[in-house]
């Protein structure tokens, strides 16, 4: 269970408050969606959960299965199983995708006191998942995300996510830049990861993705706090009615 209580975060040395007393619980096994207008604090939430520099948490707590996340470095959170699918995945020149991923995976395993994954096991998994996501083997040898299209980068995020098998997933605007076919492939991947011990938080501007990944709950984030919550149908209403009522 991811539990966020009264989370308040500022930027620019406190000059601007982005998250303002946000509270939210995502139990393991559930998929929750966060929707909201531009500037509501959606991306900030994803960064504060994962520990990016530049945000000061001035109040509130975030725990994953009781462990205080805010106290951890980004890589410690990753080792705990927190995964962020980036809105704009970064390019890593000169580092082949599989090298990057195996290094990351073994760093996480080491932090958890596990043995590194063997090269054959890693390759077997990578090949099978790449096939599911229609990622060509050739792409896995190329430097991560370098020269990839927007859609390819997003698919690569899902590939990494499936390889790393995180306990809690945050997806930031994953649907942006995806055509319908790619959207379906990505959604199939995410749906395959739904399991009783894994929570997923989908941050999205549009309802479209939620046609493919049906959420257990939908929340409206506006002015840095959750203003309303509902079921999957609530997302459809928001799409037509807009967010004005929750400003």
């Amino acid at each position, binding site marked *: 269970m991811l539990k966020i209580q009264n989370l308040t975060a500022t930027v620019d040395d406190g000059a601007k408050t982005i998250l303002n007393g946000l509270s939210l619980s995502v139990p393991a096994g559930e998929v929750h969606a966060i929707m909201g207008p531009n500037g509501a604090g959606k991306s900030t939430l994803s960064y504060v959960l994962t520990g990016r520099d530049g945000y000061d948490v001035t109040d509130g707590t975030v725990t994953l299965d009781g462990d205080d996340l805010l106290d951890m470095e980004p890589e410690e959170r990753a*080792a705990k199983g927190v995964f962020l699918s980036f809105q704009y995945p*970064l390019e890593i020149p*000169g580092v082949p995708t599989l090298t990057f991923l195996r*290094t*990351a995976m073994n*760093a996480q395993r080491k932090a958890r006191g596990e043995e590194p994954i063997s090269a054959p096991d890693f390759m077997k998994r990578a090949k099978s998942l790449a096939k599911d996501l229609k990622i060509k083997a050739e792409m896995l040898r190329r430097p991560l995300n370098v020269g990839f299209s927007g859609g390819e980068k997003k698919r690569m995020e899902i590939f990494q996510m499936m390889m790393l098998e995180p306990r809690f997933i945050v997806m930031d605007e994953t649907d942006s830049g995806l055509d319908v076919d790619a959207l379906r492939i990505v959604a199939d991947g995410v749906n395959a990861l739904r399991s009783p011990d894994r929570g997923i938080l989908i941050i999205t501007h549009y309802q479209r993705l939620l046609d493919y990944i049906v959420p257990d709950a939908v929340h409206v984030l506006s002015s840095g706090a959750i203003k309303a919550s509902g079921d999957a149908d609530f997302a459809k209403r928001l799409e037509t009615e807009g967010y004005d009522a929750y400003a």
Partner: protein
Amino acid sequence: MDTPNTSDVRVKDGIEAETVEGVRALEADKYKYGFDSDIEQEFAPKGLNEDIVRFISAKKDEPEWLLEWRLEAYRRWLTLDEPTWAMINYPEIDFQDMYYYASPVKKKELESLDEVDPEILEVYNKLGISLKEQEVLAGVKGAPKVAVDAVFDSVSVVTTFKDELAKHGVIFCSFSEAVKEHPELVRKYMGSVVPVTDNYYATLNNAVFSDGSFVYIPPGVRCPMELSTYFRMNAQGTGQFERTLIIADEGSYVSYLEGCTAPMRDENQLHAAIVEIIVHKDAEVKYSTVQNWWPGDADGKGGVYNFVTKRADCRGENSKVSWTQVETGSAVTWKYPSCILRGDNSQGEFYSIAITNGHQQADTGTKMIHLGKNTASRVISKGISAGHSNSTYRGLVSAHRKATGARNFTQCDSLLIGDQCGAHTVPYIETGTPTAQFEHEATTSKLSDDQLFYCRQRGLSEEDAVALLVNGFCRDVLQKLPMEFAVEAQKLVAISLEGSVG
């Protein structure tokens, strides 16, 4: 684009994983080569004058012509001024305040490897260099044999695999030994690539050079193993002035590696070396350097001044020389390994990774001098600056009017880490023929916080992330290194950048 096969990918993956492991293992000691060894040594008196030059020559039992050579160089040197055009700053060097000769005291003439002073063997063991012929470099299992010439301060203490090499006609020995055993070769080639009068530091080297390596590969011979020289500066207050002479006769091939380390000391030590390479028709020489002299401490105190002249002369048709350097050490580096492309269709390559951190300064690059027809050169330079350091790429590409069809491709990439460092690129491009084709590409980028965060979100620590990103940046050049050096170099890249972020 060439797609690597699967086995290739696996090997490279292995290196990278090992890099990250290596960094972790070495987290505690940033410069692991900084130990001091207590070895009985004899010195020349401090300072420099004609008597010192005579002293060195006498110590080495040199022939008259070489003493004259040294004295002439010394007199010439007195008339020269230190060059100031490089983008480096350092206090004036007091040439009278150092020793020009230091040698471990020899107990007797060595008959075999077993008789090398155990203290010295221990030094090389600590450095991961085995001087025993049955062992190989740095614990790399299954690595091919590497012959090593170990130069300790001013003298070569041992050269391995000499007998095996001799079977192929390959001469690999210390420079001093070559003067005695192969004077005709030394006299013919010494100073023919880097003239005595070449530059301030080269002229100084000609006067006081101590020892170094000599390599001769006879016609048509492919040297059966990697040759390597390992330089260790140990004695306090001593300059190191080695010289290396490599001759690749017609149709021969050799790959040569050079490694350098020095103890951590508060004072600055001067290193002014000369490397001359002569490549005859259809011959090829690969010269790789991993330079890791003590860079000075975090406040910029101490460290080696590395003022080196390296040049290759591609004399014959279709000859080829390739310089690969990984420069991570030294407080100040001033070094431009160059290629004179004299023979028609000759080729020169320069692959460089120069990393500066702390208060290090590096002004390094190459000169590609096209004299022959259809000569080709290629320059790939990766400069990484972190901390308060400054790194300059300075490169000359020139074509003589007779060098019709000369081609050059230069790519200079600079990576900045943090906001206190500098990267500079100073290309000089000259051509005397309209048929030359010269290309120059340059990029400057900053290691971004976004990239670092992305890596950390996937589970890498900040230092592992920097190591991975920088190794990715250097990949093109790292792949040019011989396998057994590539692993070391990748670790070195990571270690040199420790503490560069956060």
